[in-house]
């Protein structure tokens, strides 16, 4: 079962006045990765009870005593509350900020639509290039273009392997921006 994505066009999440986030039973966390498996029990090989999409709110319950990478959550879909287990790396502490495009006429766009629009991967704009002229480093705009090119070149799969080797949370291809590997 794949759950519908949050209704980005109708629900705007304000990000002002966020207080310290005490993580306790019932605390809201948010799915960050596309097609996150909601596992039926705290085993990486357990059958999925559903697939959750980025931005979905879940209620955190506890960390698994068998596998600290798995967390017990409750999530509502289909008019019912469901229990399941989610990988730590697929949980984000805050809801995503709504993103806007010039063509969106003031309405927030779905993060995945935003990511695949290509707008999020554009290079330094004319304003930056023009403004760089006359500054202390004449080729600064070209240096920024190099920095952007390198930053976009991060191979997310290789990064996931690197992070796993260091004991960090997984950053998998599911969260890759449009066009990333």
């Amino acid at each position, binding site marked *: 079962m794949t759950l519908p994505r949050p209704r980005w066009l109708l629900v*705007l999440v304000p*990000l002002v006045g*966020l207080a*310290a*986030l005490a*993580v306790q*039973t019932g605390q809201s966390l948010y799915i*960050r990765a596309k097609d996150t498996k909601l596992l039926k029990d705290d085993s990486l090989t357990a059958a999925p009870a559903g697939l959750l999409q980025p931005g979905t709110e879940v209620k955190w319950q*506890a*960390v698994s005593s068998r596998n*600290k990478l798995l*967390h017990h959550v409750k999530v509502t879909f289909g008019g019912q509350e469901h229990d399941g287990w989610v990988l*730590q790396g697929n949980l*984000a*502490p*805050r*809801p*995503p*900020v*709504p993103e*806007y*495009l*010039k063509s969106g*006429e*003031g309405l927030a766009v779905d993060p995945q639509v*935003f*990511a695949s629009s290509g*707008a*999020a*991967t*554009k290079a*330094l704009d*004319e*304003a*930056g290039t023009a*403004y*760089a*002229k006359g*500054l202390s*480093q004449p080729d*600064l705009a*070209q*240096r*920024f*273009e*190099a*920095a*952007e090119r*390198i*930053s976009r*070149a*991060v191979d997310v799969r290789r990064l996931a392997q*690197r*992070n796993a080797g*260091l*004991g*960090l*949370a997984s*950053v998998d291809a599911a969260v890759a*921006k449009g066009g990333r590997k």
Partner: protein
Amino acid sequence: VKRLLLGSLTALGLLSTCASLQAATKDLGASFDRGVADTKKGLDPFEQSVAGRKCKAIQDAGLAWEEEHAVGGAIAVGVASKNGGLSLAPLGSEARPGAQADDQRTLYLAEVGTTLAAFSPRPTISWTFAVLDSDQVNAYSAPGGYVMVTRGLLALVENEAQLAGVLAHELAHVSLQHALHQYKVTKSWQCLMTATKDASVGNLGLNFSGTKLEFLDVNKLTADAQAKLFNPLVDAIVSKGFAQADEFEADALATDLLVSAGYDVREYEKLLGKLPSTGKVWPNHPEPAARVQKVEEERQAWAAFGATAVVPPLDPRAKFSPR
């Protein structure tokens, strides 16, 4: 009214950095002065007309990514210019001696930054990471996902967890849109002056397209207007600091990102503890000791989560050869 006045007083503070914000308001000119005077009299200048109310709505409306990216890119370029430029070969001159090491250093920053950004509230924007060729210990960010650290800071951090703490803090400023809000306040004043046909020196003659977001194509501004819009913001960044509340908020989100990614937050606390007192440098900046305390509180609030907390060594790619 009080909020409006306070917002106006920071109207030209733009870039989100740990060494900046809250800016020169004089360039808003006579209209701004009249606006403040009206505000003091209990009159909200934005509420005096339908057009004014529309302009005020800019402050709370979303901003198109295209505009944020254009503004942020220009501001990032300006701030880099005042911090030694980028320690990176320009595109097309990769054969320069040391260019490969610079590329690898930038790539390393991008790897750590991308890891943190995946857990941020803005996982889908394009983040750009870069090293500033300055021995000062500092880090900056700009709207549009620009995050920069100085080579001085890279020399100070002892491990990747500390570096991640700095990057997470800057990612948090962008995610929480602290600087973007300041830009929107500035923009709303320009909108008001345009709507009222105010020809004061603070009126840059900006062209608002009339879309629901009042999209402003800064790419099409004259060089003079761009300079007038960006220069005070860049200057403010390099000499002022964010409001304390914004700094604490960025530290709180940074802590959340570090925990989510699996870094040991205590390393970030150690790094903050090594920073000098900010009082004489940036009067608005919270003292490191106060930041350490807040970060510690946030970290302890995550205790039940039971996340791993690792301290990876700093990748050799981060190191510079002696000059």
